[in-house]
């Protein structure tokens, strides 16, 4: 890490030896993904059929959107634990504003916007509480996650409201050219996230703040502002994920994001983004999400007993992290 932030558009000169080393370090997770996919292709006749590949892409999409949002926060060395609560709230806000079986609203695309903005709002509150009151991010977001579940429970009212807008249902269950529409949404989110990370101040300064916060401060970066913006990005992504899940399942539900939080964090770290911040990115997260999705899908295809599936999954992830992050082990010593 250089000690001063590179200006926008300016490339940093790196000699060839470092570059090769850096490539190998960065390629670790990708190699792990390729090895896994190769193994399952040999072990299961179904794994690399077009049908299953299309399913893999579908299964990858919602987790990827969550992971992308989390990446921006983890790059700062912070964490966002509110994802499941935010998804619950945004899915219910979305469904209750769209055509549904609970009320007479039918705001169509504006319902989508309301759902996504619910996520942004949670992100904004997370960010403000974190930087203004100086509360550690894991505490703020854990609390706000519970608030999200609470809001969702009130909106839920004992029975999951159903999404009856067929135009919006198609986003979740429809296909275009044999590929689920959810995949296209996820791809768009990835593209936008990549542009933000690469070409905007939020993205660039995220690396600087995560790499060395005091230095970032000394060089005059408005740390608070960029931190809050990163939390807004994460919340927005969770909002999008909540809407996506609702179009897929056809209901708004308090448990719609159940179990996705830690899977997403695992995916981000597995991809090569450091929990201490400063290194990683959304493309790496794509690879991490790929590993997790391929693993869950592959273990079912090769017929691993469900009683030991989770243990095997955990074991493979630990091995993948060790293998792909061996050269980084000194850097990952501290978790803040």
């Amino acid at each position, binding site marked *: 890490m250089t000690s001063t932030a590179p200006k926008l558009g300016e490339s940093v000169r790196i000699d060839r030896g470092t570059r090769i080393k850096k490539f190998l370090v960065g390629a670790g997770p990708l190699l792990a993904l390729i090895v896994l996919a190769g193994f399952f292709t040999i072990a299961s006749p179904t794994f690399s059929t077009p049908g299953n590949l299309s*399913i893999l892409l579908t*299964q990858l999409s919602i987790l990827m959107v969550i992971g992308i949002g989390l990446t921006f926060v983890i790059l700062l060395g912070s964490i966002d634990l509110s994802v499941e609560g935010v998804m619950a709230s945004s899915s219910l806000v979305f469904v209750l504003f769209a055509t549904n079986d609970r009320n007479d609203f039918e705001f169509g695309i504006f319902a989508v916007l309301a759902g996504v903005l619910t996520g942004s709002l949670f992100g904004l509150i997370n960010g403000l509480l974190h930087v203004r009151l100086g509360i550690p991010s894991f505490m703020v977001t854990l609390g706000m996650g519970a608030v999200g579940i609470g809001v969702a429970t009130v909106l839920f009212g004992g*029975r999951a409201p159903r999404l009856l807008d067929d135009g919006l249902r198609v986003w979740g269950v429809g296909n275009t050219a044999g590929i689920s529409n959810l995949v296209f949404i996820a791809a768009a989110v990835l593209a936008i996230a990549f542009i933000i990370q690469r070409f905007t101040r939020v993205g660039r300064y995220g690396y600087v703040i995560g790499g060395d916060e005091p230095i970032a401060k000394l060089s005059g970066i408005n740390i608070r502002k960029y931190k809050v913006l990163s939390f807004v990005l994460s919340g927005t992504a969770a909002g999008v994920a909540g809407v996506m899940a609702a179009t897929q*399942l056809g*209901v708004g539900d308090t448990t719609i994001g*159940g*179990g996705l939080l830690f899977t997403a964090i695992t995916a981000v770290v597995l991809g090569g983004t450091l929990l201490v911040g400063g290194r990683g990115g959304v493309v790496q997260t794509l690879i991490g999400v790929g590993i997790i999705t391929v693993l869950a899908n592959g273990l*079912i295809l090769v017929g691993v007993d*469900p009683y030991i599936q989770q243990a095997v999954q955990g074991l493979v992830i630990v091995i993948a992290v060790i293998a792909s992050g061996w050269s980084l082990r000194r850097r990952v010593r501290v978790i803040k």
Partner: protein
Amino acid sequence: MRISGTGRQQMRRRLTTAAALFTVASIALVGCSSASEGGGEGVTGAEGEVQLVEGVRSLSNSYHANWVAGGELFGESIGEEVIVLSDEADSQKQLSQIKALAGSGQIYALNVDPNTSADTEAIVRAVTDAGGYVVTQWNKPDDLNPWDIGDHWVAHISFDGRVSGEEVSNALFDAMDGEGGIIAIQGILDNVASKQRYEGLTNALAGASGIELLDTQTANWSRSEALTVTQTLLAKHGDAIKGIWAANDEMALGALEALKAAGLDGTIPIVGFDAVPQALDEIQGGTSGYIASVSSDAFWQGGAGLSLAYQAATGQIDVSELSNDERAFYGTQIVVTADNVGDFLEAPSLEALQADFDDPFARSQGGIN
């Protein structure tokens, strides 16, 4: 922080005092409770003087709303009002509401769905202390039974997933004309209900030679996990899947969404458990392939359970003469299909339930132990 020698001594002394006070207080409490237990034993109330009480989680879910409706039908049959306690899934609130019932000094009959197994003992002890009569349902610790506590805990009612699991599986096999492959989606693997229901499926499979269990996976009771698992299994087994079995309706509905996304809804029969409203809608609609679920009949639970507690409270039933199989029994679960789904969508008439009110044991499937 450093503590000086004298400071440490002081602290020790204070702790000793606190411990002594605590011991005295607990002895006093135990003394009080056993005294009132002795006083309440065996006292029953005359008809018309017994308060009817239902204790449920929340009125905003249809299951407990139906439960209360059943209880009100029983109240109507004897011309009494029913008090409803709704705890909103808060165990402390549930217990304090029940303790507050003692305030009126009237003997009461309580039919309650304890939030968790751990709450049951505190509830039945509170009722015993107050001289009321209680019937509990669903949750109790395995090693705690009504006869361990006394006559004021009249009975505990639960449901055997093995029986309903077998029946609903047979409904699935019938819809498949007795032939083809199925996939099974289980709940949390170490959960009792999930295990019992799956055991029911296994038993049904033993008697159905044409049916093959292609795959069994878990989706942890979750709708979205079931969707993902079903997608993968569809890729793995393709056309071989002729039926889907899920250990609850949430997961069955998730599987249905996977079928919808693959354009297969309506061609593959699905069964689940619990009779949640959306599942009933799908069964009634009849086009999605969702053919059956299992209901414990909340109307019966609310009405017959309350009737049992009331009959004990008025002395019509002498609790001490009931057998252990009557004091902890499995009720009957009913397979809901398109034929009878209407019965579960709206409250039954009083006439339909009167026989169950007169004999609360009519639907007993035998003792739990």
